């Protein structure tokens, strides 16, 4: 079972772990090739990525633009820092909401795990102001408002 693990590390890092039933080469490519990225890196249902630029080289530019199809949208820009195919991607990114958020430094690693791949992504925990702005975009929406706050928290913690 490919259970997502999401945890905070200290007060500045978010660590996400997820297993995929595909070799590291395939998962690595899916994080770099625009025609693949725009098929999956969409967040909640209903969002699309009309613009996806991803230059897979050190110093390469990243630009993702999301749209909710109802006039809502925002974009992210970034730069690739290090590529170590198919094991590791280091990049920096920021959301434009429309003011740019502080840079989020992201390291994503892909290691062989049996017949699949274990992906580990370490990224900066946004500060409170940035989190509020990101929540306000609705990009991270998806939970019914009627959910009890604690049920949401269990989901976040992966408890039960």
């Amino acid at each position, binding site marked *: 079972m490919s259970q997502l693990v999401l945890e905070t590390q200290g007060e500045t890092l978010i660590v996400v772990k997820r297993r995929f039933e595909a070799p590291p080469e395939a998962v690595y490519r899916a994080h770099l090739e625009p025609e693949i990225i725009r098929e999956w890196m969409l967040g909640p249902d209903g969002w699309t990525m009309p613009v996806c630029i991803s230059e897979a080289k050190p110093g390469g530019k990243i630009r993702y633009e999301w749209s909710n199809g109802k006039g809502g949208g925002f974009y992210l820009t970034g730069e690739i820092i290090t590529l170590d195919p198919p094991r590791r991607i280091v990049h920096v990114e920021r959301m434009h909401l429309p003011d740019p958020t502080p840079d989020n430094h992201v390291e994503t690693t892909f290691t062989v795990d049996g017949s699949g791949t274990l992906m580990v992504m370490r990224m900066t925990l946004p500060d409170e102001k940035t989190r509020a702005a990101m929540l306000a975009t609705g990009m991270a929406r998806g939970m019914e408002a009627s959910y009890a706050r604690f049920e949401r928290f269990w989901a976040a913690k*992966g408890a039960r």
Partner: protein
Amino acid sequence: MLVTPQLSLDATFSALSDATRRAILARLAQGEATVNELAEPFAISQPAISRHIKVLVDAGLIVQRVEGTKRPCRLAGDGLSELDEYLARLRHALEQNYRRLDRLLKNPPGRKDRSP
């Protein structure tokens, strides 16, 4: 008597690492409860429950007030608020992303019956 300790992520997550404390929080999500009421479902002593409560209070997750001889507890307003909202929504968005990616990896576009 309200206790409002500094919120620390480490304290929060460490407080939540225990199944009994999570059960206490789940109970309090339904409303305020006294220590006795909280202790009822568990086969552990009241002092043990009180220790769990103290951990939760210190982590800023619940607040306890004095009412005569009782010490009713309730969820803190802020202890689990916007950070957890953010993490929950991030998790939800990522889960949806990765489920899509699972499907793509299983059936890459242009590979099967849609060769270019």
